[in-house]
């Protein structure tokens, strides 16, 4: 590969760490995220090994509490929230809309540095001794009783939050202002609609978290009782403020994944997504209604029965647009021409696992059942089905789909399919038993548990071993492909999107000439013959 591309445009450290090229920044994020995924994964491994037996054997209770807290904090804020937006989003968005870069490239670089700074502060909290409050930081435990590095941890998350806000801001402005000529809103690939909806949430929800974290820090450092019942403060106010951000946050975590699935299902069925407008507006609806359901985390917290009623109702409403998407993806397959490359395997896995996760969300939205199931492993299983079975699966799918574009190499197809199948199997074995555990009453965040829960715990831990191996496989074969993989052409999937109309890997300036769009998206030909969109 002799032609100039963004990878060989400069080899110095300076050219990487002071880059404003969205593609290089995506790579920087990707490297950081692999690191944080390992840190969070290491905590998960320790947790599952410990939970294979009812009694404490691997770690002390204090250590266990720190492990699940760090697992949550790292995975939520330093892996899931930035994952697709900051890697695939950063790389693909300008290409997909026919632009040379995002609207604010320097802000993009700043967001990576803020992310790293936040990560460093949080890592400091881990290394100095850890945090043991749970990733939810409930008061008054976190403000008045915990003897751990709470302030460091919340400050790390606070800093990383600004990274989120800048990313969202950048995407919103980019999608509004930098679309290629002819690329109207209804010609945008649905990945962009999803990222736009995600960005709206990023921008509006994260500041509330920022303020809440500041209040925790103030209460801890200055000893003033904002949430302290002894001076009339209300612990439930914390929960409302926290979940007002953290519920929309879960939509930040899933919407980009849904966006990727649109691209995968259409490409590997060689067919446009069924009901484009419905899917596009379903993303916006999820973002909007997602701000109105936070109280479903608090049905037994002491909030009024009326509030619980309203939040339960709204939680059922927010499930409707998600259901629409699942039906639409399924309908896309109808009369398509389906290929089972690795990205498609991930997409199919996503549809199944996300549906299970979503259906169990309905269980939890159901007030009477939630009284039994909240704060048990049922909830843990539910959110892992969505976040790992959904989001991480979609991330891997997108990674494999755009790997040729990003690296200029093809990944080994059979290894990729094997890994996808193993991930699916390992994932279900890990998390399905946890639904049973929760229904039987095993509470979450339990270090030791009554012996009757052991069988399901052992199954879950066994599954975790398989899942860990399965997640390591892509590291090896993707890494291998970087050096020894077959070179990719500009458009190995024969897809009509703008990102495929430029070489793999793209030149630093993305396009030689400004692309012009004349057709709707997803105009796939039934086979893999070249047919560019702007012809």
């Amino acid at each position, binding site marked *: 590969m002799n032609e100039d591309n963004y990878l060989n445009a400069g080899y110095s450290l300076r050219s990487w760490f002071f880059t404003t090229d969205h593609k290089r920044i995506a790579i920087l994020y990707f490297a950081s995220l692999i690191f944080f995924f390992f840190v969070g994964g290491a905590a998960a491994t320790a947790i599952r090994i410990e939970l294979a037996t009812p009694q404490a054997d691997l770690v002390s209770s204090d250590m266990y509490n720190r492990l699940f807290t760090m697992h949550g904090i790292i995975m939520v804020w330093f892996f899931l929230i930035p994952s697709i937006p900051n890697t695939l989003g950063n790389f693909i968005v300008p290409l997909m809309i026919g632009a040379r870069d995002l609207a604010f490239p320097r802000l993009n670089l700043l967001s990576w540095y803020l992310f790293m700074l936040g990560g460093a502060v949080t890592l400091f909290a881990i290394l100095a001794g850890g945090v043991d409050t749970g990733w939810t930081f409930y008061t008054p435990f976190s403000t008045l009783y915990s003897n751990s590095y709470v302030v460091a941890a919340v400050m790390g998350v606070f800093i990383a939050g600004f990274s989120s806000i800048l990313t969202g801001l950048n995407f919103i402005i980019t999608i509004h202002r*930098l679309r290629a000529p002819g690329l109207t809103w209804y010609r945008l690939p649905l990945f962009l609609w999803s990222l736009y909806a995600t960005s709206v949430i990023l921008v509006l929800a994260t500041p509330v978290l920022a*303020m809440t974290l500041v209040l925790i820090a103030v209460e801890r450092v*200055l000893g003033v009782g904002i949430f302290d019942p002894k001076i009339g403060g209300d612990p439930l*106010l914390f929960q409302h403020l926290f979940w007002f951000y953290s519920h929309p946050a879960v939509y930040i975590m899933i919407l980009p994944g849904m966006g990727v699935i649109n691209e995968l299902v259409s490409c590997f069925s060689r067919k446009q997504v069924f009901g484009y407008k419905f899917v596009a507006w379903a993303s916006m609806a999820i973002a909007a209604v997602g701000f109105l359901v936070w109280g479903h985390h608090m049905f037994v917290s002491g909030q009024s029965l009326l509030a619980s009623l309203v939040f339960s109702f709204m939680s059922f409403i927010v499930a409707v647009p998600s259901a629409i998407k699942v039906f639409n993806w399924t309908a896309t397959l109808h009369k398509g021409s389906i290929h089972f490359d690795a990205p498609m395997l991930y997409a199919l896995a996503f549809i199944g696992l996300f549906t299970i996760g979503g259906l169990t969300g309905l269980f939890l939205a159901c007030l009477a059942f939630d009284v039994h199931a909240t704060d048990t492993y049922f909830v843990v299983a539910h959110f892992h089905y969505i976040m790992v079975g959904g989001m991480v699966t979609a991330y891997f799918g997108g990674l494999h789909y755009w790997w040729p574009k990003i690296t200029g190499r093809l990944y080994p197809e059979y290894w990729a399919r094997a890994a996808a199948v193993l991930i699916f199997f390992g994932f279900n074995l890990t998390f399905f038993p946890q639904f049973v555990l929760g229904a039987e009453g095993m509470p979450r965040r339990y270090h030791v548990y009554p012996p009757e829960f052991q069988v399901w715990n052992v199954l879950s831990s066994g599954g975790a071993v398989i899942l860990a191996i399965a997640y390591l496989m892509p590291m090896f074969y993707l890494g291998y492909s970087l050096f020894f993989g077959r070179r990719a052409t500009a458009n190995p999937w024969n897809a009509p999107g703008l990102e495929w109309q430029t070489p793999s890997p793209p030149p630093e300036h993305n396009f030689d000439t400004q692309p012009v769009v004349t057709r709707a998206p997803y105009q796939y030909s039934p086979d893999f013959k070249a047919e560019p969109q702007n012809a």
Partner: protein
Amino acid sequence: MPDAVAPQFISTAHRDETAELGMWVFLATEVLLFGGLILGYFVYRHSYPAAFAAASRHTEIVIGAANTAILLTSSFLVACAVDAFAVETRKICAGLLSGAILLGLAFIILKGVEYADEYREHLVPGIDFNFEASEANGAQLFFVFYFVATAIHALHMLIGIGLLAVMATLTWRSPTTRHRAALHSIALYWHFVDVVWIFLFALIYLPGRSA
């Protein structure tokens, strides 16, 4: 002489409008930032109306009102500066911005005086707080809100002053269309900080003081 445009933009106008739109989105995030805090304020005010009113009567309304007048005037000067932005009138523009900076600094100084007064009157929760026992809890919550909100607001003011200073310097030398866009965005930011203050003024100084 047109300044070069970054490759993702098609023209200077494109770049400048995009930058301003970016500032609007950023201000939306700030609305939510202060909004969260103000929501907490209203929850506790609803629970402790008498204590909040009593605590509010201990705030320094003279300084508060003076600060409000100062900020409104500084916003007026910034608006005039935006109007006066042109090569011929660049010194007037820079002068107006400097005036706004001075007023901003006056605000900060008065805020410092106010904080010192509150410290002397034992109204700083966590450091030195003493209030009549019947209202102590609610008053403490009020003053926590007061200090957190005004401190964060003051931080935003300092950032704004810094931005205005940079703008004033650039304008004095040789303003370009790129600087016009920057000035628009910074002016938006300054006006927003002003609007936040108006809300804070109403919530901090006025409860308990109506006839």
